[in-house]
């Protein structure tokens, strides 16, 4: 029934068919390597792989749209670091008595790479770890929390919808576009002079907004009673102790296939190897006062990280080759 294939994105891809545990291990490993290593080479690798994955799964257009704010953000991070970080020994140039160091520039670049990579990975994470996959993993541990998360996810769009309704009802309630500023206050009749000041109007707008929010609260609470009834009628929180089960159960289920097991094992090995070699060989990495220790990065760590981070690409590539094979057979 549940193939774990969310309908919202173009994910008729092999990677989305993997067991949620595989997805979790992959993202946990990738984020671990990205966040804990300050080595620019690893960070650059992470960013490139993340970008390639976004390109593959969400399309180049999405990557382009994301880089429209990602690149300026990276630039700002680098600039701020250069301007504000006074540590470091190698002076690039000086303005007045403020010297700008190459170490702070390197550090800024590393941080910017890390931030951008993490953001792209999270973009992917959101697409692959849908709420049901996440809940599948954690619902057995904490069923009530899992239900709460699900209810909140139901509640957010509902409340948003209600608020939009209230806002537009107020906007359309009378003198068309004048409406939103004139409603909610009778005092402007008495103080025509004050009514023209922008501060006054702003205050009134805020007051109206607060009114709308309070109306939203009453509406939500009013309707929550019905939701509570509906839950009770379906046996939630049954008063009868004999009828009440020891624990809520969960219906979510994904089968851990042989392929999943193999991939899971491979991923865990990769993560462990990459993490260990990385931490051992970049133990001496330091940005200040002099950038050093970068050369000691072992090739082992680099290759393991590259394999891990490009893992979805490998999976899809394998799938593609298999398709080609079966096509040529026919």
């Amino acid at each position: 029934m549940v193939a774990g294939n969310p309908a919202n994105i173009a994910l008729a891809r092999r990677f989305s068919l993997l067991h949620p545990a595989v997805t979790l291990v992959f993202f946990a490993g990738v984020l671990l390597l990205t966040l804990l290593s300050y080595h620019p080479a690893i960070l650059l690798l992470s960013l490139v792989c993340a970008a390639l994955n976004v390109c593959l799964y969400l399309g180049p257009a999405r990557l382009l749209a994301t880089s429209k704010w990602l690149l300026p953000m990276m630039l700002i991070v680098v600039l701020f670091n250069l301007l504000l970080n006074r540590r470091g020994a190698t002076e690039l140039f000086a303005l007045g008595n403020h010297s700008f160091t190459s170490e702070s520039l390197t550090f800024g670049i590393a941080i910017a790479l890390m931030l951008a990579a993490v953001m792209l990975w999270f973009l992917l994470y959101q697409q692959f770890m849908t709420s049901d996959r996440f809940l599948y993993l954690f619902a057995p541990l904490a069923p009530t929390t899992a239900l709460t998360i699900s209810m909140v996810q139901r509640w957010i769009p509902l409340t948003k919808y209600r608020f939009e309704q209230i806002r537009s009802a107020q906007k359309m309630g009378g003198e068309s576009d004048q409406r939103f500023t004139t409603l909610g206050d009778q005092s402007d009749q008495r103080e025509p002079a004050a009514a023209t000041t922008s501060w006054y109007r702003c205050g009134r707008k805020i007051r109206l907004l607060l009114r709308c929010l309070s109306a939203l609260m009453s509406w939500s609470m009013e309707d929550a009673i019905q939701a509570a009834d509906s839950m009770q009628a379906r046996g939630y929180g049954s008063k009868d102790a004999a009828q009440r089960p020891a624990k809520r159960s969960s219906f979510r289920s994904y089968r851990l296939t042989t392929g999943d097991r193999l991939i899971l094992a491979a991923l865990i090995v990769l993560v462990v190897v990459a993490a260990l070699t990385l931490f051992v060989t970049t133990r001496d990495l330091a940005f200040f006062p002099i950038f050093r220790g970068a050369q000691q990065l072992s090739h082992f760590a680099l290759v393991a990280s590259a394999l891990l981070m490009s893992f979805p690409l490998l999976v899809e590539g394998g799938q593609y080759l298999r398709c080609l094979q079966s096509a040529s057979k026919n």
Partner: protein
Amino acid sequence: MSAISVKKLSFSYPCLQADTAAAAERAAQEQARLVLRDVSFELAAGDFALLCGYTGSGKTTLLRHLVPALTPQGTRTGQLTVKGSVGFVQQDPDNQIVTDLVFHELAFALENQGMPTATIRRRVAEVASYFGLEYLLESPTHTLSGGQKQILNLAAAMVCAPDILVLDEPTAELDPIAAQKFFRHLQRLNKELGTTVLCCEHRLDEVLTLCDQVLLLDNQGDKHQAAESVQTFTPQELITYCAHTDTQLTLFLPEATQVAIACESSERKAQRTNWPLDVRSGRAWLKEYRSKMGQSDHLFPFTAAQPPCAAQSAIVLRDLCFRYSKHEPYVLTHLSAEFAQGQIHAIVGGNASGKSTLLALICGLLKPQLGQVRINKQAGLAALPQNPKASFLHDTLLEDLLDAYAGSDPAAARQMAQRLQLDQLLDRHPFDLSGGEMQKAALAKLLLTDPDIILLDEPTKGLDARAKQEMGQIFTQLAQAGTTLIIVTHDLPFAARYTHSCSLLAAGQIIASDQTQNFFAGNSFYTTPTNRMAKHILPHCVTVPDLVDALTPPPTPVTAEEGA
């Protein structure tokens, strides 16, 4: 074997005021506060029963007594036995949904019971395929339409395979087409699974053909009166009962039945046991009646009347094109229309045909990509939201009415309340009003801004027949005073009865627009039950009064004949 048996059930909600000193006085008060008084009825297993009664007759209270988890707190006397498990569906489609995904919603009740995962999956899959929800299983619940949501609620209640299904006005918030679909599911449950169904409903016209039994909770139309008794009828008996005694309840009946009741003479009313309930039996009745009255069976030719020259256009739409975003198809394509001043216009059309979008364009909430909306600059424009709850910002109705327009004085607010018969309710919280009252209150709030054009999105949704009639009369008065009303609706009988012109919106355009009578007389599918029933003989009859007028001969010669 009876599934539900209620004997002499009386109930009152707990006394909220603690200041009643004398015990005798308190007892007397409680007696007066009884919501149900000596109610008795039985329901056999496998029955499909309809519970009806006026607003405030305690229908919801009675239904809640039947659901073990929801039994109201209060004083209860009498006997009540319910054999088997009970599923419950309420009125509002949105508020009953608890979780974010359709399959989780279906699994919710089973999860509560701590069932093993494999069983849950199997049940959810079964129920989903039975209700045709498989293709929606992965969807977030908020993306469903109102009708789909309510079917989901029904499925979520059925997932535990209850023996009895109790429904409290399940289709009040749905449009007629979605309501029909919902009832078809109910009928299937009853016929195929043998589930006992007890449904409280205003839309008698839909349910009457489905149910075996009607329970009439009678409080003589008086809100403050406890329901005295439950009378049990078959649908035919109910109609005979209505035909003889109750004129108010007649409004709730199917149109074919209403016509028959209005036309038949009183002695024949008493004998009649096969009242028409739908268009098919309505046609048979019509044939029988006309031959009896010596009226010819031939087609009465209908020439469309020329629409009177409208004084002035209040709103002109020119070549409107609109889409919500670049990636979506156009909702409206080159739509042009004119709406005459001082008239009531209906815009009808299927779900998602862009009716609400068109309203939002007219009132300026959305801007068209092409074309223009021309409205007289001085004209005040107001729109009634689809859900009246969105209109209220305050804790009492009076405060809300005062807030309606900057500087409106209490006297004007009270006057408006009086005009719409809301003056008794001014101190209430707006959310405590009934559906019809809330709709009127929202309208009152709008009218205080003295608009020249009013846009209404589904104003009859959730209203019973009586409230609809009242709403229609208010609209007529407004139009007579020169206000232009544009109503988006699914309710064809309402449109036929109270509007001056009707426009059909389909494929992003106004496909047909005509004077109301011409509009419905010219349609074969998209028309009122009365028109469908009489189409082959009297094509110009589109409402119940139209047909009754056409069928009953002018009064004077008839009385002379009958006298002789």
